[in-house]
């Protein structure tokens, strides 16, 4: 039976650091796959845990199911539920960023960016990504130890997106800090006040910063993503100040924790399987082999625990009557471990193919950065396989206290560096 305590757990960020959500989701898939969850927030919601239902919900995006109505993430804390108090929620409901828009405006704005993130464009970033990867690794290789999450995995997506966005180097550290505060306002490591105050503070900083750059580049456009954003139009109108700030945040943040968490989860699991590590090392020049492995990294990590939607009409899902206005929370991790879809779902299999996981979402809001993320991770993996031997995790990592981002804040490792430098 799914209990009230289970419901409360799902709405309590610290449960995801200290509890066993995977076991809970397994019970939910079996006993109550479309489960009304009345946790510690004022509104209850339907928890979706099976793969087949998750796909159905995502297939209804921008139509039967809405992001913009009430946002695409659960408030981390009851304080965040009131749009009057929580700036982020208000901006979401106004469609301030691409990821929270619905319908035709969503499709129109997304179109402004599709070429920048499409494969031909992303493939041109190969050299940049190689250079960034080498730079990151050259700093840690001589030490024979590092915090893989902080020193390697987080830096890669941030440096690459910051380059794509044309953010000046001297500002990268600030952006990183503010972004951590915004993503994990409950987390004692980043708090500057209450969780709400922490989130508001960091949101203002990031938005203000991105807006400033965007306004400059509307006047003097470059080739970077912020310039593209500054010129983009929806229905003949350029983006508002709020949209510029919030879309800037989205681009910076979207690939940060997600890519970091995927690399950490994947590496952590891989080092538990030395024979698999050796196999991949022997195949490190095969992009096909590495791509397949990275796809399993994404399924395994599922860096976003959930995505939320609002039903815009009455409907049925898994024998449940869903009412117009009901919230639905799709637990992506659960869908990616659903045995009905994935054989040996709890086995990490770097040769799993096909691998139709939902780690990048599905449908109209399918991750715009998926190709970029994959290339980053393939290049990093290629380098790790070549340059680090006998990797060991030296302390059990702490999981992030977040019901949105799934991953570890730190991953201390030691390794035997292979002679030579990264190139």
């Amino acid at each position: 039976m799914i209990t009230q305590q289970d419901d409360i757990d799902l709405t309590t960020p610290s449960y995801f650091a200290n509890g066993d959500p995977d076991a809970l989701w397994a019970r939910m898939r079996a006993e109550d796959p479309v489960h009304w969850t009345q946790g510690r927030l004022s509104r209850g919601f339907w928890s979706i845990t099976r793969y087949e239902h998750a796909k159905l919900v995502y297939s209804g995006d921008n139509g039967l199911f809405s992001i913009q109505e009430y946002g695409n993430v659960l408030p981390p804390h009851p304080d965040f539920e009131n749009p009057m108090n929580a700036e982020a929620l208000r901006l979401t409901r106004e469609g301030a960023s691409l990821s929270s828009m619905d319908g035709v405006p969503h499709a129109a704005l997304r179109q402004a960016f599709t070429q920048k993130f499409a494969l031909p464009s992303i493939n041109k970033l190969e050299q940049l990504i190689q250079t960034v990867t080498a730079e990151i690794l050259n700093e840690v290789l001589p030490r024979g130890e590092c915090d893989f999450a902080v020193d390697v995995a987080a830096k890669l997506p941030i440096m690459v997106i910051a380059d794509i966005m044309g953010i000046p180097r001297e500002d990268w550290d600030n952006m990183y800090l503010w972004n951590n505060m915004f993503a994990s306002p409950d987390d004692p490591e980043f708090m500057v006040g209450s969780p709400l105050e922490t989130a508001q503070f960091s949101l203002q900083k990031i938005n203000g910063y991105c807006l400033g750059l965007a306004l400059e580049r509307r006047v003097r456009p470059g080739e970077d993503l912020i310039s593209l954003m500054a010129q983009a139009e929806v229905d003949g109108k350029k983006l508002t100040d709020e949209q510029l700030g919030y879309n800037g945040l989205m681009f910076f943040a979207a690939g940060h924790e997600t890519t970091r968490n995927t690399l950490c989860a994947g590496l952590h699991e891989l080092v538990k399987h030395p024979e698999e590590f050796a196999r991949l090392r022997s195949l490190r020049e095969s992009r096909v082999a590495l791509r397949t492995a990275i796809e399993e990294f994404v399924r395994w990590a599922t860096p976003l625990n959930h995505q939320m939607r609002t039903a815009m009409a009455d409907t049925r899902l898994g024998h449940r009557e869903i009412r117009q206005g009901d919230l639905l929370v799709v637990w992506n991790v659960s869908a990616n471990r659903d045995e009905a879809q994935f054989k040996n779902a709890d086995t990490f299999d770097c040769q799993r193919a096909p691998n139709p996981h939902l780690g990048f979402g599905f449908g109209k809001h399918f991750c715009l950065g998926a190709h970029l993320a994959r290339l980053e991770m393939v290049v990093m993996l290629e380098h790790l396989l070549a340059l680090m031997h006998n990797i060991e995790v030296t302390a059990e990592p702490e999981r992030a206290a977040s019901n949105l981002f799934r991953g570890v804040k730190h991953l201390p490792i030691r390794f035997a560096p292979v002679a030579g430098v990264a190139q």
Partner: protein
Amino acid sequence: MPRVRYILSDGSERVVEVPTNCSVMYGATQNGVRGIEGECGGFANCATCHVYVAEDWLSKLDPASEHEYEMLDGTVSGRRRNSRLGCQLPVTEQLDGITVMLPEQQGQ
């Protein structure tokens, strides 16, 4: 059920029955036809279901939407006059026997 003929880049062929109004992409991914990926699930968001439509079938298709047209610039294998996204091609009885060529590459 209407059939789709997939010609793979190595010259081999697969003929597959596709339920009416399911897409060319669906027919491939459901039947293990290698050479189409369709990562986003068929929503013209990833350009990894790129096909080259055989000339004699091209005019029988509904024209590409503006969105599909734009996405076709995002394919890894070169865009040609007969390029389409497989996910945007519902297979009807009128398209029974449609032939598509699969490019060498869809992903990275």
